[in-house]
């Protein structure tokens, strides 16, 4: 019993370490400027204020463009990335989880290898390609790039979820005369959907977070995504921690929400994914 208590205490400490920065970010964003400058350790604001959110949301950060626009751009890019990357990854994951074919291992090794590429080095070649495709200064250029960046890991994770779907179900359907397409749509897709959702958080984070490429590929500021807009707070002016933390909170919350929706499926899926494909 005492052992159990000890474990629980350790568990709480771990939880505290993990969530503390997020709590601190949110609480700073709600503190008044004088309270922030006094630097006290209170993990909650003494008298909560929305002044920093007001600064960000109503302030003329960039003439004619509001924070809401950046938010909308980010959401568009992230959702498109998640959908496209999820679809392509599902097809590929099905191939490696359900079939044994000659280049299967080579493909899996390649998935690992491409993750070793330092992405920042690709700015120039990708920029030239985007420009040749006529996609410069479009959100589509970002979607394309982020699909490429998120795909290797998405396939890697998703193959576990696909493998975890019992093969027998598909066999039974095949015996009943269902075509491959029908099996895929009616059996595999619904069963793997939770896993697909769990995997999509990876792609979502890639697309939601990325700064360097967004900065380079976009010109018109009405198309800026949130991370690009964030850089305006770190310009020549001093770091105003209140607004910065408020902006950070706004940038973080959607990921956390997205994540809370899918997190329960994650452990199960990782179990399958980690072990066998």
């Amino acid at each position, binding site marked *: 019993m005492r052992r*159990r208590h000890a474990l629980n205490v350790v568990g709480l400490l771990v939880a505290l370490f993990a969530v503390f920065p997020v709590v601190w970010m949110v609480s700073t964003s709600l503190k008044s400027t004088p309270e922030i400058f006094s630097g006290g350790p209170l993990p909650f604001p003494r008298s909560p204020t929305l002044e920093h959110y007001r600064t960000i949301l109503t302030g003329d950060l960039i003439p004619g463009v509001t924070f809401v626009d950046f938010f909308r751009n980010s959401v568009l890019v992230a959702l498109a990335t998640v959908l496209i990357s999820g679809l392509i990854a599902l097809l590929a994951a099905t191939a490696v989880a359900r079939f044994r074919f000659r*280049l299967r291992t080579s493909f899996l090794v390649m998935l690992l290898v*491409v993750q*070793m590429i330092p992405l920042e080095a690709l700015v120039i070649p990708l920029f030239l390609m985007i420009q040749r495709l006529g996609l410069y200064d479009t959100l589509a250029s970002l979607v394309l790039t982020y699909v490429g960046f998120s795909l290797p890991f998405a396939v890697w994770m998703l193959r576990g979820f696909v493998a975890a779907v019992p093969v027998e179900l598909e066999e039974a359907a095949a015996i009943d005369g269902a075509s491959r397409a029908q099996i895929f749509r009616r059996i595999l897709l619904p069963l793997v959907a939770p896993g697909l959702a769990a995997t999509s958080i990876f792609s979502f984070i890639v697309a939601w977070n990325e700064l360097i490429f967004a900065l380079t590929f976009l010109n018109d500021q009405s198309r800026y995504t949130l*991370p690009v807009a964030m850089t305006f707070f770190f310009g020549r002016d001093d770091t105003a921690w209140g607004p910065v933390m408020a902006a950070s909170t706004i940038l973080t919350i959607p*990921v956390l929400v997205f994540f809370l929706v899918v997190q329960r499926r994650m452990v199960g899926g990782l179990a399958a994914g980690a072990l066998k494909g």
Partner: protein
Amino acid sequence: MTTSPTRPAPAYRRGPGRLPYLLLLPCLVVIAALLLWPLGQVAVMSLYDLDSVRQVRGQRPWPFAGLANYREILSDPFFHTVLRNTVLFALANVFLTMVLGTLVGLLLHRLGRRMAAFVGGCVLLAWATPALTGTITWKWIFDDTNGLVTWLFNALPSGLSSSLFGRSEWTGYGWFNSPLSFFSILTLVVVWHSFPFIAVSVLAGLKSLPGELLEAARVDGAGPWRSFWSVTFPLLRPVFGILVVLSTIWDFKVFTQQYVLAGGTQDRPTFMLSIYSYATAFSPPPKYGLGATIAVVLTVILLVVTGVYVRSLLKQEEL
């Protein structure tokens, strides 16, 4: 290449023919176009003397440099500092992330259901926090004037703090000043970000193990240490293998956290390979050839370091 005798083949798998390749096709096209082809471009750029944007644009000739860029990089003492920083940082971070992640994974496995769900949720929250905002928050926590850490150190009795650290007033102490303390904070940030993934993966692995094995070990009187090394670890070896490979890849390439914490590409003593490559290529005056060379070197190092693991995984047909 590999066969999986444990699982019966589904009916439609008989004679898969071209189907798997068709399924892979979109993925292969995307990866080839957006990762492999640009990587090839970078490799080509590393062989040329490129220091003007007009050259990149194709308006000026590209003088072929052969391996001159590689020679320049490899003989530069600063590159050796950067390489040392990178390797030491990655080693420390992979080690700490794996140890902490595994311990937390084991802990989650032992906790009651509700507690495990709560702690697991909190841990994953850290993982889901974007690198950009997570790091900005840590930077604020370590702010030298109003940051929490500065406040906490100031709150220590000044006698104690001056005897321990030689200072009683911590406001204005530069937490990011020396490379060592910078790297310590960076390690804290990176481990904080990456241990949750390890923990959850290990937990997932543990859940997939037959409970009787661990039970049997416990009945035999094995302590937690022994039962981990004699039962859990061997069974989960493939999981750990993959996790180490992925962590190594990620920790060698840390960029966002360093970029934010160091406030850009100014703090040269704390450079690591990926930020060095980026700064060389893009800080004025741009040196695309050299920057590309560093990127290629980083990729090759990663291939070599992880190649060993990947080969052993391949041999065991565990991919």
